């Protein structure tokens, strides 16, 4: 028992709380309102409070949960809901792969825990942190845990308020995610090559969506744009 206590104390002391909280804060700020919006929509789609919160705990994927709620409301077949979730969340493979080299020295259980809470937003935050060499597993996992807690709390509050609220737009809750993508993208752009690849990927994504690839546009655009970026970079570095 004392051993466990000592271990906990040493973990608490070894974490840079200032860094951890300031990394998690923007995501928390975005997740509370979006989680709330999800909770409201889920209750209005006929889910119970328990089911609404359970989805936020075990699935934990913002856009997929919002899509799933609208499918539940339309009484779509469960297998179709699961398949849609799979396709919508496949993009996380690319993110998981992109962060993999930074987890070389991590323990297996740390990778298992970390991956469970890998979202678009936590990916954005961690890819910035990892680039600065801040890839300590404990604070990284703690940041994820704080972010998911905010998501679960927002869902719970939304579910409880669900019957009272039909419209989340007056509070601009719906703009938290786009605003977060704006910030995460701009913070990633460090040179002209990045900017050009970002523009190409954004344009491709929109065109693909317009062409009807409404579930695949993000993944396909990312693969093409990243291949282009890596191709140009490798080609430029080759001795002539």
């Amino acid at each position, binding site marked *: 028992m004392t051993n466990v206590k000592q271990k906990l104390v040493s973990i608490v002391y070894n974490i840079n709380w200032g860094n951890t909280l300031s990394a998690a804060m923007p995501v928390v700020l975005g997740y509370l309102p979006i989680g709330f919006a999800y909770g409201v929509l889920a209750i209005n789609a006929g889910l119970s409070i328990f089911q609404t919160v359970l989805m936020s705990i075990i699935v934990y*994927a913002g856009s997929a949960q919002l899509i799933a709620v609208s499918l539940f409301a339309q009484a779509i077949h469960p297998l179709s809901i699961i398949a849609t979730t799979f396709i919508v969340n496949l993009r996380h493979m690319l993110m*998981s792969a992109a962060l993999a080299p930074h987890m070389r020295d991590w323990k297996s259980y740390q990778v298992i825990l970390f991956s469970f809470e890998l979202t678009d937003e936590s990916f954005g935050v961690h890819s910035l942190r990892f680039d600065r060499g801040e890839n300590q597993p404990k604070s990284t996992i703690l940041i994820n845990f704080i972010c998911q807690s905010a998501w679960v709390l927002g869902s719970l509050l939304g579910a409880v308020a669900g019957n009272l609220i039909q419209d989340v737009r007056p509070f*601009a809750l*719906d703009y938290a995610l786009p*605003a977060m993508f704006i910030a995460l993208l701009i913070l990633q752009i460090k040179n002209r090559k990045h900017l050009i690849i*970002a523009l190409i990927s954004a344009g491709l994504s929109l065109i693909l969506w317009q062409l009807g690839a409404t579930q695949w546009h993000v993944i396909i655009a990312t693969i093409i744009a*990243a291949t282009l970026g890596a191709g140009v970079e490798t080609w430029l570095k080759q001795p002539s």
Partner: protein
Amino acid sequence: MAETTLLITLAGMALVTYLPRLIPAWVLRDKQLPVFVIAWLRYVPVSVLAALLLPSLLIEGESINFSASNLYLWAAIPAGLVAWKKKSLFGTVIIGMLVVAIVRWIIR
């Protein structure tokens, strides 16, 4: 949908969400990757965030709204400026939401 069916559906969703998050990190973390693959992985963040962003600004329901009436697009300007000048994720989210809320309040 029956209670049990719904819970099984949620469990299925959890599984198909988790595996794509876990497997690449699990398989690739202790591999020495070719130079091209490393370069490719470095372009993933910019590419995926850009591919997520533009549709989230332009798509309203079932169609693309690329016009002056798109509030999301206008609000992206102050939000983008905050991100660029202040390098602040927190500030960007606050300013973006504030602009959208205020404009909606004025023109409701």
